């Protein structure tokens, strides 16, 4: 238990997360106290001869306990739960992408064996990244190299239909972030923004660091007729929840449609590679 908590605290935790990890005991105590209060009230009412005392005795504690349970499960999580949640949220690759990529590799083997080899290596790297520890922060440079491999695979399938515009030079490559923040967003951009188009579609990625914060912005072509379905909301929900588990209120993710482009923006605290963390 203690060990798990330490592994989650490899990076400086903002106050919100600290409360999140330590608050469970307080709430258990509160639960016991409120249950006692209810019991006393009900007993007093019974003694004073109120006819509705039995009803109260049944419904009020039930309602209160339900409320308590709801509040606890919604807002409070023990460290083990935080970790379990992170594991459950660890990003998954779309099966659509996996099977289409394998198919593209098969379609390339005879005509361009070397390209097919590279593609399998890229696929292997991508899967290794998906299987890595979701609790460890990674340097931006690592996430970027993963994104490039992912895009190379998509280019094998989609050719010139996929265009990418990087604007990341002003962002320090040693910045730390939770793993797989950017790659799932790229995958969304390809699936919802580029694949429905006949003409080439451009994905823009912009990263800046300012005032101790890191801003990651990704945009893709948006056609209201195709929309961004439940799959997109799920991916964003996943990233948002992982951000909350790492940074509490300290990080945000929002999305909007500006003219014919869909924009997702993540703002998170900037930490450089920490002495206790990986190098």
């Amino acid at each position, binding site marked *: 238990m203690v060990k798990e908590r330490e592994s989650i605290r490899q990076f400086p935790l903002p106050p919100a997360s600290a409360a999140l990890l330590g608050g469970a005991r307080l709430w258990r105590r509160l639960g016991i106290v409120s249950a006692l209060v209810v019991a006393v009230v009900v007993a007093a009412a019974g003694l004073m001869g109120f006819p509705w005392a039995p009803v109260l005795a049944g419904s009020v504690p039930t309602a209160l306990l339900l409320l308590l349970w709801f509040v606890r499960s919604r807002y409070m999580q023990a460290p083990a739960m935080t970790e379990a949640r992170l594991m459950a949220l660890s990003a998954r690759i779309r099966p*659509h992408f996996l*099977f*289409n990529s394998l*198919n593209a590799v*098969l*379609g390339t083997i005879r*005509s361009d064996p070397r390209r097919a080899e590279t593609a399998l290596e890229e696929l292997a790297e991508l899967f290794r990244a998906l299987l890595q520890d979701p609790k460890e922060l990674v340097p931006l440079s690592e996430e970027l190299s993963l994104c490039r491999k992912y895009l190379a695979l998509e280019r094998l*399938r989609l050719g010139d239909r996929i265009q990418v515009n990087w604007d990341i030079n002003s962002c320090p490559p040693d910045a730390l972030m939770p793993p797989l923040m950017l790659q799932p967003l790229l995958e969304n951009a390809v699936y919802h923004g580029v694949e*429905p188009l*006949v003409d080439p579609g451009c994905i823009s990625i912009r990263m800046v660091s300012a005032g101790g914060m890191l801003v990651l912005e990704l945009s893709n072509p948006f056609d209201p007729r195709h929309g961004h379905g439940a799959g997109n909301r799920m991916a964003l929900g996943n990233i948002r929840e992982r951000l909350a588990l790492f940074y509490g209120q300290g990080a945000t993710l929002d999305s909007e449609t500006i003219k014919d482009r869909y924009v997702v923006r993540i703002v998170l605290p900037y930490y450089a590679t920490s002495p206790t963390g990986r190098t």
Partner: protein
Amino acid sequence: MNSPLRVLVVDDEAPARARMKQLLDDLGDRISLTVIGEASDGQMALDVLAEQPADVALIDIRMPRMDGLQLALHLSQMPTAPAIIFVTAFDQYAVKAFELTATDYLLKPVRADRLLTALQKVQRHPPPSPAAALHALVPEGRQHLRSTVRGKVLLIPVGDILYLRAELKYVTARTETAEYLLDESLAHLENEFASRFLRVHRSCLVARNAISGYERDKGDTPGDERQWVLLLAGLDEKIPVSRRQWPTVKNLLEA
């Protein structure tokens, strides 16, 4: 012996088409077939088929412009349409619908043996059009109607059509800017797009969302009972409503 099976390959990804053609090529000594063409979306597939017929079309589901299901809807309107075998990497909804309606499909990456079985099945007895699966997956029907102008196939977005009118042996589709000749019956269109178009006359269907109002026509035939006409957004022309349809139309407009 049968004549070679004419195959059309439809997929938006070049390597996927290459893979399918390799597989078909590999099957050459086990089944007599010839690839008549390939297309990177539904619209292109329709163009290819207008030039030369095929016995079977291997159709990817997810494609830009016109996807595989929309293409299948168009094919199901055509008398000499090829048999359809859907190909998909991963599409839970579609696969479920195919299973329920016994529609054949292949999963990518496709295995040669599985492809052979599917083609042999088509050769033995061509399957019926996958109407039931399509109805379940695309309840709103086609997104486009086809109109052939001087040998070229035009696709008119169904959402742009204000009304459809039968004249002599043709049906015309009217949009805000133009009029197109269609090659299908009004009864069939009424059936397919029941939720979008409303029959206002024996020979006319009007897009429900285009109706902006109604009035009594200032007819100049004396003695005649004056007719009700519909006003459409974006069009000066007024659409007469038949006496028989008026009660239904009026009810709908007032609802």
